[in-house]
């Protein structure tokens, strides 16, 4: 299975390494040639020696997407640092190249939710963080004390 990841920052590069380790074919596309180095953090060999592919280019450039293998990709992950970029290129992957699985990282919960309802698979790290923080506070409160600091009756 070929997985194309556009945006090779902390998130993109970590997902790329994990997918490669699991035996998938992985291709990364990023505007910044330096992001190639991030891919190799913690690897014993070079990204290419391990079978990975890396292309320099923007997610809106048709030539770059094709060079990175979008036409035969089974999965497409949009994880650049721009919400709007991710939403737009994910729709291009979906509608123009008909990639079977398309996922967009969207930090803004409102945009993530609306596009999810339009049929685009979005992942919102902000919502995940909010849920975890709320959960942590609730369990601390339940274990420790009430809002005024006094211990609650068991």
């Amino acid at each position, binding site marked *: 299975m070929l997985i194309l990841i556009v945006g090779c920052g902390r998130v993109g590069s970590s997902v790329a390494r994990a997918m490669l380790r699991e035996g998938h074919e992985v291709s990364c596309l990023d505007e910044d040639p330096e992001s190639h180095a991030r891919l190799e953090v913690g690897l014993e060999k070079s990204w290419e020696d391990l079978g990975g592919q890396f292309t320099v280019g923007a997610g*809106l450039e*048709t030539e770059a997407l094709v060079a990175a293998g979008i036409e035969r990709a089974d999965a497409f992950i949009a994880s650049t640092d721009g*919400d*709007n970029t991710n939403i737009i290129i994910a729709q291009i992957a979906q509608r123009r190249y008909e990639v079977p699985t398309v996922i967009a990282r969207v930090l803004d919960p409102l945009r993530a939710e609306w596009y999810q309802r339009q049929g685009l698979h979005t992942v919102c790290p902000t919502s995940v963080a909010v849920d975890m923080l709320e959960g942590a506070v609730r369990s601390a409160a339940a274990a420790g004390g009430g809002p005024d600091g006094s211990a609650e009756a068991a």
Partner: protein
Amino acid sequence: MYIIVIGAGKVGWNLARELLEKEHEVTLIESDRRRYLTVEQELEHNVSYGDASELWVLERAGIQRADMVIAVTGDDEDNMLICQVAKEKYLVDQIIARVNNPRNRQHFDLLNVKPSVSATDLILRLLEHEVPEYGLVHLLDLQEEQLEIIEMLLGADSGVTGRRVGDLRMPDGSLLISVLRAGKGFVPSADTVLEVGDEVLAVLDPGKEDELKVLFGPAGPDGNGADA
């Protein structure tokens, strides 16, 4: 009309000013604080500070009652997203999007963000119109109707001059609609003979330009266009 303009660069600022002069109600949204403060000195309450790709910023500007949204930021992804949301989520009747990089126009079309305007494209077309050696000028794109109208100037080397219109092998999906000769236009008949210096107008299905260019362009060694 209530019009929301996104992006207070040169285009957005001037547009907002003109629309206000025509007595429309206008909100101009700008995400850069310094730019906002500059523009606000002139346009006052008609400018709003915020990132218009945030839905709550659009809602605060009253997008639910907007008649038109015009996205003219310097970022094509932002313009596409804002117009898509305006049209599909808030059901705004009319949108206009600016295309910064003409190569991105295909993406605007794919996401059904229409009409979109590219200054680069417009200047290129103007250039083609002013410099007739370019051969073929787009006069009109009827995207919904899937038609284009183009104009061609017949040079001395054109393969069709001296020939009857009825003898031309026009590509399927194209039609010669008029001839401009010595400042006068007329609808050609099959017996009209084309002359050097004629400007011909043709209506065609999109994508037929190249075939017409070959037919009306210079007669090549293979006798392109001059197949009679």
